């Protein structure tokens, strides 16, 4: 470890004794942050579980309105983006900056694709009058609680969508960082943590997809 001190750039903050300690600290910090994210989404999952236990028929009827094909496509898109960002980190650890930027850009494109598909789904619903909560006006589902299902649907996918946007911002920032070479094989903490965040966004969608779209 003593050799790495000679490389020390401005990224080692004064209160850490070496880069290992700094890396482990920020990674632990990121994991704890992910825990808080999971519990925040957890609240919505609890609401989902309780309403599904109360009204199984509602969830069956309402889920028919959702396009499972587009949902599945989005799942594939997000899994692919998880792969590309993992590869981006791998390339960066090998100091292959060009490849790393390509993979990060691919991730960004995939994330945008996800949002475009989501946008298609949303506008399709809006056109039918399927709006969240009090603005709901669709007649096609013969269940008095239909608006509540879509409230949950919009809250869950909406909060997830906000996280996709945040993730895109982070990835864009990382591309700039790689370009400026301020991250490299000896210091890649920000990219690593962005990756962790992005994988969590993927994991949440992995649960959302079968729970919302695939109810038979």
């Amino acid at each position, binding site marked *: 470890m003593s050799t790495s001190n000679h490389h020390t750039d401005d990224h080692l903050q004064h209160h850490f004794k070496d880069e290992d300690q700094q890396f482990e600290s920020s990674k632990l910090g990121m994991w704890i942050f992910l825990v808080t994210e999971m519990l925040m989404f957890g609240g919505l999952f609890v609401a989902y579980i309780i309403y599904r236990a109360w009204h199984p028929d509602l969830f069956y009827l309402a889920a028919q309105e959702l396009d499972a094909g587009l949902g599945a496509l989005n799942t594939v898109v997000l899994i*692919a983006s998880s792969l590309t960002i993992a590869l981006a980190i791998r390339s960066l650890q090998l100091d292959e900056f060009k490849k790393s930027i390509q993979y990060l850009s691919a991730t960004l494109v995939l994330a945008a694709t996800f949002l475009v598909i989501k946008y298609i789904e949303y506008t399709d619903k809006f056109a039918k009058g399927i709006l969240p909560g009090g603005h709901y006006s669709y007649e096609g589902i013969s269940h008095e609680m239909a608006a509540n299902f879509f409230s949950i649907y919009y809250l869950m996918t909406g909060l997830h969508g906000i996280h996709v946007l945040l993730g895109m911002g982070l990835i864009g920032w990382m591309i700039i960082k790689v370009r400026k070479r301020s991250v490299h094989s000896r210091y890649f903490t920000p990219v690593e943590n962005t990756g962790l965040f992005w994988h969590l966004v993927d994991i949440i969608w992995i649960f959302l997809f079968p729970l919302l779209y695939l109810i038979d």
Partner: protein
Amino acid sequence: MAVAGALLVLTFLTVAVTWIQIPEPFNVIVAVGIAAIKASLVALFFMNLVRDSLLNRLAFVLSFLFLAIFVVITLLDTLFRDSGFPVF
């Protein structure tokens, strides 16, 4: 790469099982089960928990534990809202 492949196969599987109409409680279990396997794959390999420190793994597990507490105890109310205390 292999992990991504497995994830795609599982995604297909989770859609496919809806075509064969598994009876009521089991369809949810299968769907959530597949999702859990996929999530573990992402966590273990993409997020590299497989080689990470015990503490970070603990954090991940802990959040699921507390979510489970939240769900189970709340269901104790919502599922039994209209029935009296079972013993009496």
